[in-house]
């Protein structure tokens, strides 16, 4: 029986958010609290030669790298990023000095003069001499696959930086207490911050406590960078002995914090004349920025999604993420997949054009089916829904009819087919050893997890899963604040894993608790036996094997599948492309909280439209030149078209109630569908954002038959002899 799962319950945090009573970090104060400020580098690369405090320092707390009691790093994959620059800087806006004062006016007026000996910066990823990570995936024999082809099509596709633009800027409040420190702040991953602080401050685990404040959006932007900010706030708090609040303003948040990795992806694809893909040779280059952060994992996910959701016997993917002297790029919804899926999906429409084939038909022919193997040799399960979502989106949107009807007008329509692996890549979930707990309360149970609700509905979804497993009302399930002093480490709130993985652990906890309770009510059990807490640790589903060295095996427990159909209108004078309608069909397994799922899909789609069309990060001397909302343009109500969502539910047998992940996938396919819609207008754009300037500069295509052909860039192996009739379909 499911009474809460699959229903639109009232979200746990809805009333407080609508009433304005939910407390975000900037809403918190403490007696004697100081405000803090970060002094940052003005150059992209070089040595710091002098530092002068050109203000009256009375009442100020000042912290530099010398004040770090532990190790001066933000620990993550490699510990290369200092928490405070020590002698040299590697990117603009790198933190050098911290100031705190109780009067914000005096704090802002304080002038610090820093002398530098600049060095030659590297801004072009293509010329970087330092590789953070190299990934190679091989399947079959790429040369044999290319030899089998009638046609080999090459192309290069580029994506830019993107700013997360959560509406709540980053912030932390650090409170020295009990011989240690407590931080309350805007964050996704309490235990990432916890570990970073123990390393930085040289404190034992139990002297550091991390508590999530209500968090005003994250999208990956509050995955790793909060460790830095918490470190800064704690250094000041411990030195001053007073609570310290460090909240970024919008400009600082945009200048200093992480962005989506820019990418250049090159494809060389062999196809037969009837449209079968015989070989995919893919080269991926990502710009990691000045420090490693999470770049190796972003690259890994990018490479694992680089082939798109297509069957192909001969694959080679070669990826690199490199260093440049720009602020480090990091986690952002999709985590590498949007970049590579953009490339492959734009490339698919070019292939269709070359073959004179309907892009929908080309995808139908090549889409992965249950039982097929991916590039890493993963055999796909029965929950593989590529064809279902493709057909559902095409039918719902009237794709074929509109594609014909829009020809010769300023309206275009394009589609993209995509997938997204839920949970950590490969063996990541095993290494995390995530734990989740349930605790009995007099009126029901309390969920104890380190997963954070950053707007996606974690509290609600976890409560639904627990309520139905235990057979108790949804309202009888409380969800504890993510506080490292109270909750176990359930891993980070990232990678579309919160429902599928942590929710799965909670389902196990609830099942065990149900058994322990027997026929007793929670209150009766507590009277008879005392407190009860049940904890479960992650174990991989049977058969899930992955090799990190060879990139062979099951990269993910399950994939979600989706298809976007996007309609656009081109302004013939300004070359502005306006999206007019989005139809999207998405399989995310069982939808636990359908309203929340819809919200994720609609919101991810809107964010993707910004990525596709307007959101351009302009760097000058390695610093963001448009670090404000006035000229970094995110979609408003007037820029966001109606988004029609079709849910296709193919349950994943190891997910709680059949759920997969949903957080990231909705973002992945938007940019290529937009660019393919522009392509249907005869404009050859291969880079996002597709700003009016890029659309104006893009080559025009000559039409030929059903598809639209390039005038360039194809390498013919054999003469292609296929009739191209409008609307022709080939079997």
């Amino acid at each position, binding site marked *: 029986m499911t009474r809460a799962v699959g229903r639109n319950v*009232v979200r746990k945090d809805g009333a407080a958010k*609508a*009433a304005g009573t939910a407390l*975000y970090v900037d809403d918190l*104060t403490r007696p004697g609290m100081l405000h803090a400020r970060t002094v940052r580098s003005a150059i992209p690369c070089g040595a710091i030669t002098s530092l002068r405090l050109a203000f009256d320092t009375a009442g100020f707390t000042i912290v530099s790298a010398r004040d770090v009691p532990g190790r001066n790093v933000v620990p993550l994959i490699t510990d290369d990023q200092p928490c405070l620059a020590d002698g040299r800087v590697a990117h603009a806006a790198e933190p050098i000095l911290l100031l705190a004062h109780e009067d914000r006016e005096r704090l802002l007026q304080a002038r610090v003069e820093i002398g530098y000996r600049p060095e030659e910066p590297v801004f072009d990823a293509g010329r970087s001499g330092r590789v953070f990570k190299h990934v190679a995936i091989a399947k079959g024999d790429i040369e044999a696959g290319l030899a089998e082809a009638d046609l080999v099509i090459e192309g290069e596709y580029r994506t830019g930086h993107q700013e997360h633009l959560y509406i*709540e800027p980053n912030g932390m409040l650090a409170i020295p207490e009990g011989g240690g420190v407590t931080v309350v702040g805007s964050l996704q991953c309490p235990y990432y911050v916890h570990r970073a602080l123990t390393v930085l401050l040289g404190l034992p685990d139990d002297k550091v406590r991390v508590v999530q404040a209500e968090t005003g959006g994250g999208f990956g932007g509050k995955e790793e960078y909060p460790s830095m900010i918490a470190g800064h706030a704690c250094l000041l708090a411990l030195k001053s002995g007073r609570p310290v609040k460090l909240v970024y303003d919008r400009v600082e948040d945009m200048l200093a914090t992480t962005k989506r990795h820019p990418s250049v992806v090159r494809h060389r694809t062999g196809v037969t004349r009837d449209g079968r893909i015989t070989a995919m040779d893919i080269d991926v280059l990502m710009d990691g920025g000045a420090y490693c952060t999470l770049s190796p994992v972003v690259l890994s996910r990018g490479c694992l999604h680089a082939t798109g959701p297509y069957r192909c016997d001969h694959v080679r993917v070669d990826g690199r993420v490199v260093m440049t002297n720009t602020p480090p790029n990091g986690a952002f919804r999709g985590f590498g997949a949007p970049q590579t899926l953009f490339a492959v999906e734009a490339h698919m429409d070019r292939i269709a054009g070359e073959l004179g084939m309907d892009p929908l038909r080309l995808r139908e022919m090549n889409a992965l089916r249950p039982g097929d193997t991916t590039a890493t040799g993963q055999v796909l399960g029965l929950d593989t829904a590529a064809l279902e979502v493709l057909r559902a989106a095409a039918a719902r949107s009237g794709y074929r009819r509109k594609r014909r009807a829009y020809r010769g007008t300023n309206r275009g329509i394009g589609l993209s087919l995509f997938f997204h692996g839920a949970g950590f890549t490969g063996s990541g979930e095993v290494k995390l050893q995530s734990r989740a707990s349930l605790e009995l309360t007099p009126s029901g149970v309390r969920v104890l997890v380190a997963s954070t609700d950053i*707007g*996606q509905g974690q509290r609600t979804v976890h409560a639904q899963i627990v309520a139905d497993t235990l057979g108790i009302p949804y309202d009888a399930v409380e969800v504890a604040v993510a506080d490292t002093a109270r909750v176990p480490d359930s891993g980070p709130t990232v990678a579309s894993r919160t429902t599928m993985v942590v929710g799965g652990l909670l389902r196990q906890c609830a099942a065990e608790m149900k058994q322990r309770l027997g026929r007793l009510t929670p209150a009766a059990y507590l009277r008879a036996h005392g407190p009860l807490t049940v904890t479960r640790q992650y174990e991989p589903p049977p058969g899930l094997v992955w090799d990190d060295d060879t990139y062979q095996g099951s990269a993910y427990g399950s994939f979600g599948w989706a298809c976007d159909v996007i309609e656009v209108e081109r302004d013939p004078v300004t070359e502005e492309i306006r999206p007019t309608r989005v139809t999207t069909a998405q399989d995310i397994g069982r939808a636990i909280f359908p*309203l929340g799922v819809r919200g994720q899909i609609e919101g991810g789609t809107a964010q993707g439209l910004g990525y596709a069309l307007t959101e351009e990060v302009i760097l000058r001397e390695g610093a963001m030149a448009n670090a404000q909302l006035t000229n970094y343009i*995110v979609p408003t109500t007037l820029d966001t078209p109606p988004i029609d969502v079709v849910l296709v539910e193919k349950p994943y047998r190891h997910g709680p109630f059949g759920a997969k992940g949903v957080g990231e996938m909705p973002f992945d396919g938007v940019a290529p569908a937009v660019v393919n819609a522009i392509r249907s207008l005869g404009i050859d754009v291969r880079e996002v954002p597709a700003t009016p300037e890029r659309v104006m500069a893009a080559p025009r295509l000559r039409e030929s038959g059903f598809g639209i052909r390039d005038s360039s860039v194809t390498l013919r192996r054999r003469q292609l002899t296929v009739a191209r009739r409008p609307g022709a379909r080939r079997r």
Partner: protein
Amino acid sequence: MSGILRPITFVLNGKRTSLRVHPLRRLLDVLREDCGLTGTKEGCGEGECGACTVLVDGRAVNSCLVPVAQAAGTKVVTIEGLRGRHPLQRAFAEHGGAQCGICTPGMIMAAAALGPRPRLEEVRTGLAGNICRCTGYEGIYRAIQKQEARSKKQEAKRQRPAPTPSPQSPVPAGRRKRR
């Protein structure tokens, strides 16, 4: 902001409020810091995102762009002034209008300025100054369209002044909720 303080009086959430403040301080800061009303949020500080939207004499304004002197003699309503009972508040909570919630107070104030039954096109235009990064706006439209018709009783309640903390003894930010 130190310097010359001036007495400023306005009606805040139905209650006459007098403060001694620098006239050029942002209305947003005065509401959050001096009046303890932290429901009004700062998202950008440049009048682009609308998270700080409040009503001044019934019109939605960005309180980050309004010097408090301009509020003198006006009626200011913040999210707290709706006391959690406005039909929009319930609708936002129940129909996916709020995700991370940081834009929600401003969004609700901007929507409240549109009256009880706005058409979708009016909503799209009326909320064009409020950015939401979570919902793609669809959930917000659904919430606004599903707000229950305001009953006469609710309307009458809304006319009554909402309790606000005494401005003479400013409550620190974040404390108010616990009272």
